[in-house]
């Protein structure tokens, strides 16, 4: 690793920090823009009680002091307490739901990468043949459907009509459909990415050299072509994580699964603002880290790439 790469990594780290800072700032001031305090209720409460509550939560301080405190708390993962779920820290709620989302999201990412690379390289090898055409048509068509439509059609077909799968259970069978739904769109993107990069690589001189040497087709594909054609997929890892996070918001709702996405949607409909803000900051953090890691990884794997 040379000093240029180090410089790049440091630059990206600073950028990531600034991004998280911006999100924390935006969420804080956005929370201030929402009319009404957290203790406003239908029933009138004694003003002195509200005053006590405000004092307890530090809401009597000037806004700027509150902002600094929010910032400091966010640094140590403290987003305050939920307004609707009694006596629970938002961080605990996130901690309870994260494992479910992580399991679904990582499986979906793995599925998308594996199937995407297989389909993409198949299409490239069968360039302009029936298999290639079919794969391209399918991958173009399936990104034109919103994920909630696909999810609903899946539940209708597999659960309501065929009765194969139950919705909203805890067994692993219930996770098949959600994982497939979430992975569909990234899978199509990876398929196209792998196809075009494999086509590029297959036209390269060193592949012709290998062919001339009499290396078998299989060996050329796995030893020579795939190693180079798969690297662009790494750059897509960041956007894919972002897609999976948003995809899970819809899919968890429709398939009635536990997870961060459903928690986020529920907190919106319950107007539990501290929870909305906490989840936003957390998801941003997650995504910034993933993008950072994937970019740095790509830089290390492929040192020829110059990002600026």
């Amino acid at each position, binding site marked *: 690793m040379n000093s240029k790469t180090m410089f790049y990594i440091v630059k990206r780290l600073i950028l990531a920090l600034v991004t998280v800072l911006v999100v924390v700032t935006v969420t804080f001031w956005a929370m201030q*823009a929402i*009319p009404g305090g957290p203790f406003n209720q239908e029933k009138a409460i004694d003003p002195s009680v509200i005053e006590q509550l405000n004092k307890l939560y530090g809401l009597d301080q000037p806004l700027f002091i509150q902002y600094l405190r929010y910032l400091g708390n966010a640094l140590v993962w403290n987003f305050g307490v939920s307004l609707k779920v009694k006596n629970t820290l938002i961080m605990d709620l996130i901690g309870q739901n994260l494992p479910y989302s992580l399991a679904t999201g990582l499986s979906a990412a793995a599925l998308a990468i594996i199937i995407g690379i297989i389909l993409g390289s198949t299409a490239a090898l069968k360039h302009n043949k029936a298999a290639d055409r079919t794969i391209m048509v399918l991958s173009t068509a399936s990104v034109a459907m919103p994920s909630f439509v696909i999810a609903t059609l899946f539940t209708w077909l597999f659960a*309501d009509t065929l009765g194969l799968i139950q919705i909203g259970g805890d067994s692993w069978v219930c996770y098949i459909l959600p994982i497939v739904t979430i992975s569909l769109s990234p899978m199509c993107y990876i398929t196209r990415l792998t196809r075009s990069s494999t086509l590029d690589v297959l036209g390269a001189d060193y592949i012709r050299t290998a062919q001339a040497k009499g290396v078998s087709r299989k060996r050329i594909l796995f030893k020579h072509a795939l190693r180079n054609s798969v690297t662009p997929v790494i750059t897509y890892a960041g956007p894919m994580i972002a897609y999976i996070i948003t995809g899970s918001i819809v899919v968890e709702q429709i398939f009635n699964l536990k997870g961060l996405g459903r928690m986020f949607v529920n907190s919106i409909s319950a107007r539990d603002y501290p929870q909305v803000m906490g989840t936003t900051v957390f998801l941003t953090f997650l995504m910034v880290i993933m993008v950072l890691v994937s970019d740095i990884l790509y830089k290390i794997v492929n040192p020829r790439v110059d990002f600026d």
Partner: protein
Amino acid sequence: MKLGDKNPLSFQVDYNSNLFSLATRNEKKETQLTRPASSFLRDALRRFRRNRIAVICSVFMLILILAIIIIPFVYPYTYDQMLGVTKYGTDTSFENIAPFQYGATELERIKAGEFIWPHIFGTDAHGRDYFIRVIVGTRISLLVGVFAALVVLVIGTIYGSISGLRGGKTDLVMMRIVDVIYSLPDMVIIILLSVILNEAFSMAGDNPIVASLGTNVISIFIVFALLYWVGMARLVRGQILSIKQQEFILASRSMGASNGFIIRKHLIPNCVSVIVVSAALQIPSAIFTESYLSFLGLGVAKPMPSLGSLASAGRDAISLYPWLMLVPSIFIFLIVLALNLIGDGLRDAFDPKQK
């Protein structure tokens, strides 16, 4: 020495006027270029026309756009008309009618020999004609898409070109801002902003513009204006930076062209294709975003329909009345597919390397 006087041993051909004759008109014509000089735009159009899929998609979109403009004026039902509601009470036989079926009173009128316009896609749970709702929904979804793309186009182009033209420190600072916005999780931020803007607008009271559009649509535009322009800005800046360094700009400058001339005659024409393609692909993305927000209950205001809100409302009764979900979903599918393919076709047509 006169022409014709030459060394008798010379092999030189003796050019005198007898060797030449005047060209006929036909011969003159033959020397002209058979193909007229074609402009960049005409070339692109020719390439686009050769792309059969893109042409079919364009025709489809044209027909659809004509349909959504004309049909609401001539159709006998309106999108918010509850057919079952009379002054004597609500006739439930009008709710969730299957395609090409009729409500109870309509059947009586048909028996009496009257012509009743069929409900092509049936009716929804409130007894509203679904065909007109889907048509109006398409209109609103497309409008949201086009306006969002315009917002992105204007902000992104201005920002990107300032950054690219100024260069230096200005560029550095402007691009770091873009980097930060670029790495935000867009959907999460969109949801957050929609929620907050909703609250803010609902407190602002009865603004006529807000009331007619619904707070959510305005939120979508604001969100696009705040977040989605960064991709366009990056693209325009990159394009300008690469053109700025090419020789023909230097040549133009050395001949004394002013900055304004260079921008108008060289930079803008060379950026237009990139901008058009990116804006075209922005429309389906905005339609998607709108349908997604509709699913979360943050879409257009009721009773106004959008394709996304129709599809997500249809979800609840999918096993009983599947067409309520399927019809708008198919419309979303076809529109997004067509726009994506048109965008791809435009990109191929505008790419001079393809020539």
